[in-house]
């Protein structure tokens, strides 16, 4: 194989840095993960340490439908982003609305579950350690879902007003990262509270 020297012309090499929004969102997710870790550790530490009832075995029912709704919303928001990036606005609006609706179903479902626990089973945050840890961990997650829903709703309103276009894929993409995080946390919360803790 023969070699020959080729003069490489001095070209302006592109100077590419990580995107601000994504780095910032990943930082926020790191901080939020640390907060959730502490609550999850507290929950696991206090499993079975309640001095009085009711216990998780007696009152908790698996929120299968809720879980399916929330997890599938991760898929719909991903597809919505794909639609927005390819410029298919109608499809984006439909999928974004679907995401918002699925998230709302989850929050309503959590509300119904809490209503049942409080009024039918008599479990409040001050009843016993299970109540304290359960309501704070699930409540912290529900708070994050609510914040996410407010943001999703804002984007939905803007989209319906026709103000979200292809060039906004970047900001909505950052928002979708947050939503994916909220869904991933639910996997952990579900495992800890409903599978391990029961």
């Amino acid at each position: 194989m023969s070699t020959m020297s080729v003069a490489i012309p001095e070209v302006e090499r592109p100077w590419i840095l990580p995107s601000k929004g994504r780095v910032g969102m990943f930082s926020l997710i790191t901080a939020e993960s640390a907060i959730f870790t502490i609550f999850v550790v507290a929950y696991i530490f206090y499993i079975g340490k309640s001095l009085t009832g009711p216990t998780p075995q007696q009152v908790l029912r698996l929120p299968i439908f809720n879980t399916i709704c929330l997890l599938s919303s991760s898929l719909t928001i991903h597809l919505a982003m794909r639609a927005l990036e390819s410029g298919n606005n109608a499809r984006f609006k439909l999928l974004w609305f679907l995401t918002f609706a699925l998230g709302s179903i989850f929050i309503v479902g959590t509300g119904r579950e809490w209503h049942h626990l409080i009024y039918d089973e008599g479990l409040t945050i001050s009843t016993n350690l299970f109540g304290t840890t359960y309501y704070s961990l699930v409540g912290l997650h529900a708070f994050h879902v609510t914040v996410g829903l407010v943001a999703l709703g804002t984007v939905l309103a803007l989209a319906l007003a026709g103000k979200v276009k292809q060039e906004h894929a970047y900001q909505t993409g950052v928002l979708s990262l947050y939503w994916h995080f909220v869904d991933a946390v639910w996997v952990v919360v579900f495992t800890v509270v409903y599978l391990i803790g029961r």
Partner: protein
Amino acid sequence: MSTSEPKPESEQSGQPAIDLGTSGTSAATGSVPPVSVKLPAPTAWPFVLAFGLSLIFAGLLTSAAVSTLGVFLATAGAVGWACQVLPFERQETTQAKAEAAPVFTSRPEIARIQTLPEMQRAWLPIEIYPVSAGVKGGLAGSVAMAVLAVVYGLISQGSIWYPINLLASIVYAQPFQLSTRHLDSFHPELLLVATAIHLMTSVLVGLLYGVLLPMVPRRPILLGGLVAPVMWSGLLHSTLGIINPLLNQRIDWMWFVASQIGFGVVAGLVVAHQERVRTRQHMPLAALAGIEAPGIVLEKGSKGEDL
């Protein structure tokens, strides 16, 4: 001055938006013509949001009215903030007066620090003893020490088992708590324990000699035979009460030091007579790391290859 100008700006990541008067990054010479620079516009909404959030928390401790005001302010702050960045970041343009102010130094001369590689190496041992030398020395010393200890036992108590039992009492003192008569008699398990302790300590100290002696290459017997045993005995003198109270009560320090010196002289002699090997410190990093790197690694047949 500055004008507020919510102009659409499509680029969203990376550098803040800039308008250069001239294109190109840094090719200007002399004085640069004024360039217009876009900076994020001042806004009070983050302040309002922070104030609102603080009031929400403060309201928990004071009254609901404070929290209500906080919620109102926080909402206003959040909405106001959103309007600042959505759909496009609010920026203002300023004129940057860029005059040429060349970077210069009053210390143009550079001095290089002279390093002499061989001088820095002078204090490290070029040659060391192999590990086996330390083991051999330790074992030889252990024999010498054992002989001396047994002699001591015969002379002072008329029993060769006396020093052995005392040594074993480091880990196994319980049998002797009641009477002292047993110290003179033979106990197989104590012989085992004492032998293990004796051999282990001897080999460890022998290895230490193997490491230390090349550092003081001129008088190995003085260091190994006298200085080290005396220091070791001094250390033991102050700590033996904790390690082995029984031995501490009965110890004869003259004999103890004598047997230590016996160990030191023999171990030192044996170690010092072993053949030394060269260290690898002169070899390049690539050779030490075992990387095959032609041109860096020494060629075959040269010194250092046989290590």
